[in-house]
């Protein structure tokens, strides 16, 4: 039996090589259906690798420093340092898309939404006070310039999860 199927590992290896290389190469094709990033469904780990592909002009070198202060009913101040949102089930892109970007145009309802979200995991001690400081930082004439911060506050009498 062993000799009859001795070709099998080699054939399998060839098939796997062709399959994996084909999946990787398909990432180069436009409109591919199996691989892609940001599609509704895709077969991780066979995904595209755009990796910060968009270019920027000099007038687009800007960012907004967003600083949160969240206080719970018991008076606890929630630690909102580096990547704090991941402790509340919010991964980076989702956090920015759902909360950080809307803060610029709709600060009050967005702060309330954020407080509600954070309170979901701690209903016994919900967030009752939320403040955000937005500060634009731009590159102007080769120097980083920090603009006047804007502060928005939301007080929440009760937050339901």
């Amino acid at each position: 039996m062993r000799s009859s199927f001795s070709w099998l590992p080699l054939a399998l290896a060839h098939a796997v090589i062709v399959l994996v290389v084909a999946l990787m190469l398909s990432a180069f094709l436009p409109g591919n259906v199996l691989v892609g990033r940001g599609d509704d469904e895709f077969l991780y780990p066979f995904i595209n690798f755009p990796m910060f592909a968009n270019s920027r002009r000099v007038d687009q070198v800007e960012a907004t420093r967003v600083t949160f202060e969240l206080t719970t009913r018991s008076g606890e101040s929630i630690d909102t340092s580096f990547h704090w949102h991941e402790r509340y089930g919010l991964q980076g892109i989702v956090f920015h898309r759902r909360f950080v970007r809307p803060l610029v145009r709709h600060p009050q309802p967005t702060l309330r939404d954020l407080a509600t979200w954070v309170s979901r995991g701690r209903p016994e001690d919900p967030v009752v006070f939320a403040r955000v400081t937005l500060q634009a930082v731009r590159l102007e004439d080769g120097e980083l310039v920090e603009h006047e911060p804007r502060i928005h506050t939301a007080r929440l009498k009760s937050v339901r999860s």
Partner: protein
Amino acid sequence: MDWWFPHSSGRHLALSRMVIVGALLVFFFPSLTDLKTNLAYHDQFMEPQMVVAWTSSWLGGGLPTTTTLTAVYAVALLSGILTLVGFMTRPSALVLSLSYWWLVAFRYSFGDVHHPPVPTIIFLLLIPLTPCNRHFSLDAWLRRRRGVGSLAPTSMATWPLRLMQVVLALIYFDSAMSKLTIGGLEWMNGHTLQANLLHAGVTRDWPLALTVVPHLGLCKALSVGTILFEGLFFTVLFHRRLVPFWLSAGVAFHLGLVVLRRGDLGFLAWVVMYVVFLRLDRWTVREP
């Protein structure tokens, strides 16, 4: 054929198994607490990946329970340890690859997808098909205790290493091509990197990134270096002498990303994957 299937002892494959699985278990394994947090805050998947969607539909739809998640995690951890020490190596590697794949897919089904685990998952999916247990494993030790003689060289122990070399080259090349086709040559104008570093410095509270931002010339040089590295890394496949150069460049590239941008430490798993390029088959350490 000789490039994919040369005869070898299998030591390089076995050492790669140990290095990559060991690094995964010690440095890059996902946190169970983080995975459970997703269950606590979400009622459903945001963008379920195929693997997760398939298993979810088998289990009646919806999110898995905390018990199921913990069980998969425990299975992945245990099979990882068995793969590392080489006990029932190939079945263990198969279980590890499937369970780790699922855990990563689960984590990335909540709206955010990242690349760091990609090479590791592909490697883990390959090794159950290979004689990865011929050396540096409990399986090999038990075989020797049973008095089975030394194994003849095999032609099946190099192709997964070669395939990972090709995969890494394709990933880097894809990254360079994406930048040049989407961003154009302007991607290297220096302002693109300035904007990227400014965003990283401000959102991650990282002063080092902000100190680099005003230096346009340095940002241009780093941008050009990135395109050259990603676009030309594939030449490592054709010229063996280029291996030290490109691997050193890769280490500098990934460490630079981590240090300058306070980037994801998970990308250092790609540096660990460089073990597939090293010539370890002549390893002469006496095995127990």
